[in-house]
């Protein structure tokens, strides 16, 4: 009888796991939604600090995982500031000083414009399959939608977050909630992905709320106002020459 019960439980467990797609499959689906050959978007970053709220507007151009260019449009103090990422290098241009400064080392961990995002967050390869191995650990409901719960572990040491926990919408293959951890297991950041919209045949979050768990503020909202995927980007935009233009 005991043997029978054991076999029964083992079979039910394996059947349960068999219902889950593999972590790798889910990550590949997420990558299909979240990454593209090129993208151009206008966004707003609403930073809820301890002393008030600031809104920063910018326009960004991205090509693959290695090239990205952002120009800040508002407020006046930020207007004209530009940021360029080429592979693993990052430059910032400020019109008030007419200087191009390369950001490296510990500066990459600094907050971008006082937000809950760091330069490192901008630098990281968005294609999850390149960086992480994933295990599906169960299912949960987030905002009324059934989700796979994924635990991601970095393939190499040089990633900003060694572990991630992700709640991925089962039907749309988009993360709805994410927790980012250090190797020590300490929770570093939390993200809520909202307003999932179908754009050019892919599901994409138009509003992401980031919370740096090390900061006391109320988090940063990253709102995408307009986005286009796979459009042609003039090559001059993604070069250092465009920083001073």
């Amino acid at each position, binding site marked *: 009888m005991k043997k029978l019960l054991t076999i029964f439980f083992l079979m039910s467990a394996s059947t349960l796991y068999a219902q889950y797609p593999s972590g790798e499959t889910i990550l590949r689906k997420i990558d299909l939604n979240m990454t593209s050959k090129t993208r151009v978007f206008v966004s707003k970053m609403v*930073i809820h*600090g301890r002393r008030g709220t600031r809104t920063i507007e910018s326009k960004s151009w991205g090509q693959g995982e290695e090239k990205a260019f952002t120009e800040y449009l508002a407020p006046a103090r930020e207007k004209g500031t530009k940021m360029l990422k080429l592979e693993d290098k990052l*430059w910032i241009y400020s019109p008030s000083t007419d*200087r191009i400064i*390369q950001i490296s080392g510990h500066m990459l961990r600094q907050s971008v414009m*006082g*937000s809950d995002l760091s330069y490192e967050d901008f630098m990281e390869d968005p294609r999850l399959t390149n960086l992480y191995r994933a295990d599906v650990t169960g299912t949960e409901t987030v905002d009324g939608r059934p989700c796979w719960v994924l635990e991601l572990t970095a393939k190499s040491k040089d990633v900003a977050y060694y572990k991630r926990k992700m709640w991925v919408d089962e039907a749309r293959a988009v993360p709805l909630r994410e927790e980012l951890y250090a190797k020590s297991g300490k929770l570093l950041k939390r993200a809520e992905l909202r307003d999932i919209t179908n754009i050019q045949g892919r599901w994409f979050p138009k509003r992401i709320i980031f919370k740096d768990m090390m900061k006391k503020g109320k988090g940063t909202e990253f709102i995408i106002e307009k986005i286009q995927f796979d459009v042609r980007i003039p090559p001059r935009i993604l070069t250092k020459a465009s920083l001073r233009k």
Partner: protein
Amino acid sequence: MIRFLLKGLLRDRSRSLFPILVVIAGVSLTVLLHGWITGVIGDMVNSNANFSTGHVKIMTKAYAENEDQMPNDLALLGVDEILTDLRKRYPDMIWVNRIRFGGLLDIPDENRETKTHGPAMGLAVDLLSNKSPEIANLNIEKALVHGRLPEKPGEILISDDFATKLGVSPGESATLLSSTMYGSMAMQNYVIAGTVRFGVRPMDRGAMIVDISDAQLALDMSDASSEILGYLEDHIYDDAKAAEVAMRFNAEFAGSEDEFDPVMLTLREQKDLASYLDMASGMSGILVFVFVLAMSLVLWNAGLIGGLRRYGEVGVRLAIGENKGQVYRSMIYESALIGVIGSVIGTAIGLGISYLIQVKGFDFGSMMKSSTMMLSNVLRTQITSEAYYIGFLPGLFSTVLGTMLSGIGIYKRQTAQLFKELEV
């Protein structure tokens, strides 16, 4: 009587030279140790007060909680009004506002792109106004290694080690990349007017000193500051006075839960200095006590040996009819004379060496490469009023006590036995 004893001591070197040398050595070491301990503790208090804590410091409650992170988004606002009020209420004290900030100091190449850069620890103080006490507070003129002090807005000082690391000299330009009070990116061009070396490792690693108005402009901190520092009269830290000022100031905001209310902390209440100061002071007390005790034992022993060595002499003196009490007293007077002479010379030597170390100092910079404590690389002794008399404790009292104990034996000697003893 004293003259007679003095002559005796001078003519019989076996009675005077060795005991005086022992007293001189013990007393000078006691004075030197006292000066060294006082100097190290005093230096720690001064360095921290001048560079970091003031005798009292005002910050917002929220800033004070994370002070090490220099969270300028939580800085004090309405600083001009607070300063005017403080100067009116505590006219004997010196009040200054400062901004601390972290950032990247970037040196441009010919295309105005990054040639080299390094993390800077920024300190904004009033460098340009005529009445500013900050040049003296931070001893900037003395710390200047190359170049000159800033004379106009847009000029900065950087630490000499940092300048060497970045490969820049006075006259070259540098760009600060930091965050404004509101979290935006702050970029500002400056000209390096000079390089400084304070002899305080945390400052010499990567300090950048900028005028406070320039920093307020760059960091979007108009009428705002990270902190306001207060210095007591004569620039001497008095914990009781500082605590009283802080108590009166904080009483005004008692009961308020606003995290942006100002709070005043005394030097003791900052950076774990209370426990450190207590420990240092306790340790110094114990060290001096142990040393004085050890020296006392040595000198007491010297007194005892002296007394026993003169066993025969005492016997002869008693045999020729000198009173026991007179012999005993004369020996005590002699040892008191030895103690006084030895203590005076020992104190003079101890003070002399202490003065030399006070002026020259010992450089411990290579041992404090990663230190974050505001402690000078060059440690010095400090001569205080106590140093003039502390040596007399072992020097005079122990010698006399030693002689008094050994001299008790005089009273136990029997006149009838003296000649028998002297025959031997």
